[in-house]
């Protein structure tokens, strides 16, 4: 099934998604990877305000390649980064903020599947498709934490039908990655028995 979603996402949107569905997202999305996650956790610990409102928001695991044209930033190439690096930090962040979508690549672990239950979804975008992704970024609205460097800063993008995204993890506890992984584990055992 195909879904066209608009940010801020609503819980009904999220509950209608099933792992394996195709989705496109329009509106505002925030990039965050390793360093921005670490800083967000630090801010939460110190009860400091985060620079953006994550309610119904979509976090994009992306370290974009940006270029300044005059006074405006433009995204040159902006595909997803490996989400698994954020596995351990994501549940702690989702306890505190009401972000409902994560876009990334490669999937996330069981703890994240649980953290997203009845609350959010994980969307997979094709890794390496940075030139294609940049075409869907209509405007760069803002940048925070740019002292972390271009890839690690928190960028605010306005996107138009960003996708096609595959729903990798849905809010009902289903993960394509877990399904594939179980098959792979069985196949792997069979292969190594040949040696």
């Amino acid at each position, binding site marked *: 099934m195909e879904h066209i979603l608009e940010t801020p996402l609503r819980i009904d949107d999220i509950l209608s998604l099933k792992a*394996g569905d*195709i989705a496109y997202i329009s509106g505002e999305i925030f990039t965050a990877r390793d*360093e921005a996650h670490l800083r967000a956790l630090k801010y939460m610990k110190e009860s400091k305000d985060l620079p953006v409102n994550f309610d119904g928001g979509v976090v994009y695991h*992306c*370290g*974009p*390649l940006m*270029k300044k044209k005059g006074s405006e930033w433009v995204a*040159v*190439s*902006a*595909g997803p*980064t*490996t989400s*698994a690096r954020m596995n351990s930090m994501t549940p702690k962040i989702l306890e505190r903020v009401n972000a409902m979508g994560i876009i990334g*690549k*490669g*999937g996330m672990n069981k703890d994240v599947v649980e953290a997203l239950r009845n609350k959010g979804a994980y969307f*997979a975008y*094709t*890794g*390496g*498709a*940075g*030139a*294609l*992704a*940049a*075409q869907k970024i209509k405007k760069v609205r803002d940048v925070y934490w740019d002292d972390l*460097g*271009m*890839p*690690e800063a928190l960028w605010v993008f306005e996107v138009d039908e960003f996708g*096609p995204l*595959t729903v*990798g993890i849905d809010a009902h506890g289903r993960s*394509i*990655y877990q*399904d*594939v*992984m179980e*098959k*792979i584990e069985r*196949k*792997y055992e069979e*292969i*190594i028995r040949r*040696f």
Partner: protein
Amino acid sequence: MEYDDVVDTVRELFFRAETQLGEDVVEVLRRAYESEDNPVARSNLEAILRNIDAASSLKVPMCQDTGIPVVFVEIGRELCIEFDLKQAIRDGVEKATEEIPLRPNAVHPLTRKNPGNNIGIHIPQINIDLVDGDSLKLTVMPKGAGSENVSAIRMMLPSEIESIPRFAVEVVKNAMGKPCPPVFLGIGIGSTFDGAAKLAKKALLRDVREMDDFEKRITDLANELGIGPMGLGGRTTVLGSFVEIGYCHTASLPVAVNVQCWANRRASAILR
């Protein structure tokens, strides 16, 4: 050949590598797309092929991870270079970073401070070899971190030769969707601890359409896993495996597997 020729060539090579894939790489990706019947696998391979077209027509890097700069240099023995070749390469990388542009990826390993120009201690990584002739061959390989992070080295035992393919399959299985499959495997067998890793990286420079029986066997075994494009399931996980060997100590068998994402970016030029 002057200092500036090297600077400009390095800049040009990064531009080519980042915006266009070699025809051998595109050919195996097309074949992979045609061989998949799983719709999710097909849609991801289709996005990859469309992205390759978009990058070359828009002249922008195909992936935002424009890699860590790796440069291979072959210097003809009869050539006399009277300038600082390494500095010229560094200047070329800095120019490429600013003009193409490239994402500033190089950071201090502990402070994580980013100088913003992809220049730092031992970066760009420059590998120099002396060869016959009177020309200078420059090859650049911008290497992404998703695939570099799942690469592995193992000091195997001389009695474990038969298990080398098993180790390669284990690396691919542990990597799952993280390195942007379908991937290429550069496999270094022999040499020393560091030498095996170097051979593995060099193996990734080969034409990806040509494999021997051993390399095909490793590729087929890994594809049986069914990880598929982006780890979402499918037939194509490994597009090719390439082995380079070096003699090793009679008591050891170092094996390194360097994983490369589908964007196997390389470009070469010869200067006289």
